[in-house]
C-alpha cells in the first residue's frame, strides 16, 4: 500500500465533510485566499506549470483550457464542474465529493476567479443523489461564511455555485450534452461550433472541468506547484486518482504518482487477482477505454507510455478481468452498455452499435459467420472516425483493442494490423 500517495486526497478522513469549521481547522480555504490575492494570469501560469491534464478523460491541458476561457470576452461566464462520473469502473470523483467537498468548491471558486465567471454549476450524476444534501450543505455553509456568494472575503469577486442533478444518461458526461441537460433538454450533444468556451450554458462562455481537475487546482494552490511536481516522472509529473476494480483483491480508489507500472498498480496496490486466477484482460479509462493483455503489465502508467501501446488514462478507471471470463463475453458487456447509452442522434453510433451488437451476439453464441469479424471491424472504424461525439468515437475502443490483443479469441490466427 506504500505505493499510493496523498496529495489530492490529503484531506480524506482528516475532517468532517459536513462541517466547514472542521474544514477550516485543517487549513481549509487557504487556496482560495491565495488565489484571490493573485492575478488571473498568475494562476494560469501555475496551472500551466503543473501541466495537469483534464481528468474527465479527454486529457486536455488544464492551464491552456483556463487561459482560453479567460481570454474569451464577456463578464458573465460559467464554470461547470462535471460530476457526472458515468464511466463504468470509475468512482474517484465520488470519493472527492463525499470525503472532501469543500476542496472541490474551492477549485470552482479558483477556476471562476481565474476565468472571470459569475456562476458555477455542479452537474451531479443522478446515481450520486445521496450526496446532494452533503454538497448542498457545503455550498450553504460556504455562503454563510463568506467564501461563496457576493464579494468573497471582501475581494470584490462574486461567485455563486448551483447544484444540478442529471437524469442518469452516460452521454451527459460529454460537455455539450451536459449543458443541454442543465438547460432542461434531452441529453444529446450539441453541434460545434459554436464552442462551449464561447457559447455554452445559457449561451454564456463556459468552462467545464472534472471534479478531480478542480480538486487538484485547490491542492496545488494550497501546497505550491513545486510540491505537486515532486511526484510522478519528469515527463509526466504529478498524481492521479485511479479507480481500481474487477477481479482484484483490494478494489478501490487510490491516489498514485504517475509512472507506476500497471503491474505495481494491480498486484501491489490491488493485491493481485483473487482465487489464484490469472489476469486475462485489463481495461483502462472505463467502457470507452481500450483493453490490454498481461503482456502489457509492465507499461508505466503515464500518458505517453500508455499511448505507445494505444492505451489511455481516460477516466482513470482500471478494470481487471481474470481468466474465468471469455474476451467475447467481456466485449458483449461493453456493447450492451453502449447500446443502452448511445443517444441515437447520429447514424454511425445508433446504427453501428445496432449492427455490431448483433455480430457480437453471434460470436457469444458461437454462430458467427465467416465475414462477421471483418464487418464488425469495418463499422467499428466508421464509428471511430465519423461519430458525432466522443461516445460514438470510443464506443468500439474495447472491441478494436480486444481484437488486436486477443486475435485468437475472434478466430484470427495472425495479429491484426493497427
Amino acid at each position, binding site marked *: 500500500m506504500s505505493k499510493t500517495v496523498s496529495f489530492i486526497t490529503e484531506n480524506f478522513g482528516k475532517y468532517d465533510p459536513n462541517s466547514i469549521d472542521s474544514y477550516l481547522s485543517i487549513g481549509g480555504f487557504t487556496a482560495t485566499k491565495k488565489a484571490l490575492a493573485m492575478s488571473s494570469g498568475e494562476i494560469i501560469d501555475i496551472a500551466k506549470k503543473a501541466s495537469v491534464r483534464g481528468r474527465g478523460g479527454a486529457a486536455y491541458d488544464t492551464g491552456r483550457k483556463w487561459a482560453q476561457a479567460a481570454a474569451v470576452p464577456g463578464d458573465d461566464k460559467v464554470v461547470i464542474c462535471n460530476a457526472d462520473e458515468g464511466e463504468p469502473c470509475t468512482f474517484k470523483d465520488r470519493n472527492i465529493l463525499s470525503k472532501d467537498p469543500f476542496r472541490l468548491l474551492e477549485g470552482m471558486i479558483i477556476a471562476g476567479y481565474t476565468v472571470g465567471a459569475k456562476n458555477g454549476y455542479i452537474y451531479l450524476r443522478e446515481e450520486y443523489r445521496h450526496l446532494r444534501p452533503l454538497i448542498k450543505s457545503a455550498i450553504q455553509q460556504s455562503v454563510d461564511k463568506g467564501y461563496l456568494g457576493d464579494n468573497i472575503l471582501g475581494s470584490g469577486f462574486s461567485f455563486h455555485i448551483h447544484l444540478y442533478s442529471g437524469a442518469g444518461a452516460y452521454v451527459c458526461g460529454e460537455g455539450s450534452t451536459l449543458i443541454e441537460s442543465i438547460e432542461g433538454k*434531452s*441529453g444529446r450533444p450539441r*453541434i460545434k461550433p459554436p464552442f462551449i468556451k464561447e457559447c455554452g450554458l445559457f449561451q454564456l462562455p463556459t468552462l467545464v472541468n472534472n471534479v478531480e481537475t478542480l480538486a487538484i487546482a485547490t491542492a496545488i494552490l494550497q501546497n505550491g506547484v513545486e510540491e505537486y511536481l515532486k511526484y510522478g516522472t519528469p515527463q509526466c509529473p504529478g498524481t492521479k486518482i485511479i479507480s481500481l476494480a474487477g477481479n482484484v483483491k483490494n478494489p478501490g480508489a487510490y491516489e498514485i504518482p504517475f509512472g507506476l507500472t500497471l503491474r505495481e498498480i494491480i498486484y501491489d496496490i490491488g493485491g493481485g487477482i483473487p482465487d489464484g486466477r490469472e489476469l486475462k484482460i485489463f481495461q483502462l479509462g472505463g467502457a470507452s477505454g481500450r483493453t490490454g493483455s498481461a503482456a502489457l503489465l509492465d507499461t508505466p502508467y503515464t500518458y505517453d507510455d500508455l499511448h505507445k501501446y494505444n492505451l489511455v488514462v481516460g477516466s482513470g478507471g482500471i478494470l481487471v478481468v481474470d481468466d474465468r471470463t471469455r474476451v467475447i463475453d467481456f466485449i458483449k458487456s461493453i456493447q450492451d452498455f453502449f447500446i443502452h447509452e*448511445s443517444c441515437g442522434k447520429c447514424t454511425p453510433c445508433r446504427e453501428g452499435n*445496432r449492427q455490431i451488437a448483433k455480430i457480437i451476439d453471434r460470436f457469444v453464441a458461437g454462430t458467427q459467420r465467416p465475414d462477421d469479424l471483418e464487418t464488425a471491424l469495418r463499422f467499428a472504424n*466508421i464509428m471511430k472516425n465519423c461519430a458525432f461525439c466522443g461516445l460514438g468515437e470510443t464506443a468500439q475502443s474495447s472491441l478494436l483493442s480486444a481484437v488486436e490483443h486477443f486475435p485468437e479469441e475472434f478466430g484470427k490466427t495472425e495479429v491484426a494490423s493497427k
Partner: protein
Amino acid sequence: MKNVKIKIDNIDLVVPEGTTILEAAKKVNINIPHLCYHPDQAIKANCRLCVVEVAGSKKLTPACSSYVFEGMDVQTNTKKVRDMQKGILELILANHNQDCLKCLRNGNCELQALCQRFNISKTNLEDTVEALPLDNTNPSLVRDSAKCVKCNRCVEVCQKGQQVHVLTHSHRSVHYNIAPAYEAPLEETFCVFCGQCSAVCPVGAIVEKDDTQKVWDAIHDPKKHVIVQVAPAVRVALGDEFNLPKGSIVTGKMVAALRRLGFDKIFDTNFTADLTILEEGNELIKRVTEGGVLPMITSCSPGWINFIEGRYDHLLDHLSTCKSPQQMFGALSKSYYAEKMGIDPKNIYTVSVMPCTAKKYEAQRPEMVTNGVQEVDAVLTTRELARMIQSAGIDFAGLEEDQFDNPFGIGTGAGQIFGATGGVMEAALRTVYEVLTGKGLPSLNFTEVRGLKGIKDATIKINGMDVKVAVAHGLGNAKPLLKQIEKGESPYHFIEVMACPGGCIGGGGQPIKSTMDVKGKRIEAIYKIDEDLPLRKSHKNPDVEKLYEEYLGEPLGHKSHELLHTHYHSRGMKYDFSELNK
C-alpha cells in the same frame, strides 16, 4: 467579409470566411453526399454522410458543419472517405424499409439517389427495421417511421420554422425515433397538417396522403360529374415535376393535362379567391366602421386555422368568418353550379388541386357541407396531380395550352397573387381602397407587403384614416403578432397569415426541393401573371359580379352567409400547466 483561399480536391478556390466545406464544394461543382443538411435549415450534422478528409486532421471532418480556414486542403473522394460514406449509407439502408417500388418518393428520394451513386448492391448487414406503427389516420399526412432516417429535418421545420412543436425526437440509441410526444397519432396532437415536414423529408417517411386513386375512381364513374379547381400557386410549381425551369408558368398546359385526365370541367380557384376578397373586404370594412373585433385576420390558410384553433383559441374572434377559396368553390359547386347545370349535387364530384396538405384536412371538416353533401370531395396536392399526369402517360411539356371553363374560369390578378405571401393583403387593399374611396388606386402594387421577409407591415391612408396592416408567413412569424393582440397592443386593422414560408407557393404539397431560392422564383412568376392580366382587381371580375346578381345578392348577404362563411372552434386540447407555474 474576409475571403479565404482553400483547396478542394486539388481545385483552388476563394470563398468568404464562414462558408462551410459543403457549400464551398458546391461552388466548384462537387456535391458532397448528405441527408440531414438542408439549405434553408440550421446545421444538424447527424447523418454523418458528408465526412471528408482535411489535411492535418486525423479524424474525418463533417463538411456540413465545418467552416473553411485559410489554406484548408480538403479531399472529398479518397478511398477512406468513400469507404466511410458507403458504410454509413449501408447502416442507414439496413434500418430502412426498402419497399422503394411502392414508395411515393420512388425516383425522388435522396437516399435512393445516394445508394445509386455509391452503387450499393449488397451489404453484409442484416436488414432489420424496428419501427413504430404507421401513422395514417389523418386526412393529410402519412408518417412511416420504418423509412425514417432520423435526419431531423422535419423536427427542425416543425419546431424552429413553424414553431408548431409537434414532431420531436424521443428515446435513445436504437430506440431513437422521430415522432410526436408519446408517439401520438398526428390528429391527436397540435399538428396543423401544413405538411412542411413532408416537403423537407429526404425519403418517404412523411408523405402526403395519396388521394389519386379516389380521383381516378370518380373520373371513371359514369354517374359522376367530376369538376376540378386549381389553386393559384399550383401553376407556378407544377412545371418542376416535369423538369421545366423553376418558376415556369404552366397554366395552359396544366388545364390541358387536366382535360386529358378526364375532368368534366376545369375551373380556377382564382375565381373564388376574388369572391373571398369581396366577402372578406366587406367584412373588414364592416368591422372597421361598425366597431367589430380588430385586427381581423385572414382565414384562407387551413394550416393557420388549425394553428389558431389549437394554440390560440382565445383569439378566434379575430378570424375572418370567410371560408377559404377552396371551400367557397366547393360550396358553390354543390349549390349555384348544381342548380345552373341541373345536376343533383350528390352526383357532382368536386376535386381541388392545392399546394397544400392541410387543405385535405379542411375539406373533411364536418361544417364544410352544403346541401347535405361534402363541399370538396377530394384534394390533390401539386405532387399528386403530377403523379396522375405521369401515370396517364401525358407528355406535359409538349401539351398545347388550354383554358379554364365557365362559370368559374375567370380570375383576376388579385386572385392570382393569393399564392404568394402578402397577396391576400394586397388583393384586399386593391378592393377595399376603391370601395371606400370610390376612387381608383394610383398604383395597384403594394410592394411593402411583398417579399420573403418574415413579418411585413404597411400603413395605407384611406379616406383620411391610417389603415395599418401586417403580413406573416410561416407560423413562427405569426406568433409575435398574436402576442401583440393578446396584450392588447396590436396596432393593426388587418393581418394576413399564411402557414407556409413564402405563402402557398411554398406549401407543404408543392414539389419536393422547394428551397427558398425556388420560392423566390415562384413568387416572381405569380406577380408576372398578375401584371399580365387585363383584370387585376377582384371587384372587377365580371363573373363574380354576375354571381352576386344571379345568386348571392350582396357580399355578407344571407346567401353568402349560408354558403361562404363559417365558424371556428377550439381544438380543445390545451394542456393545463397551471400547476407547474405555481
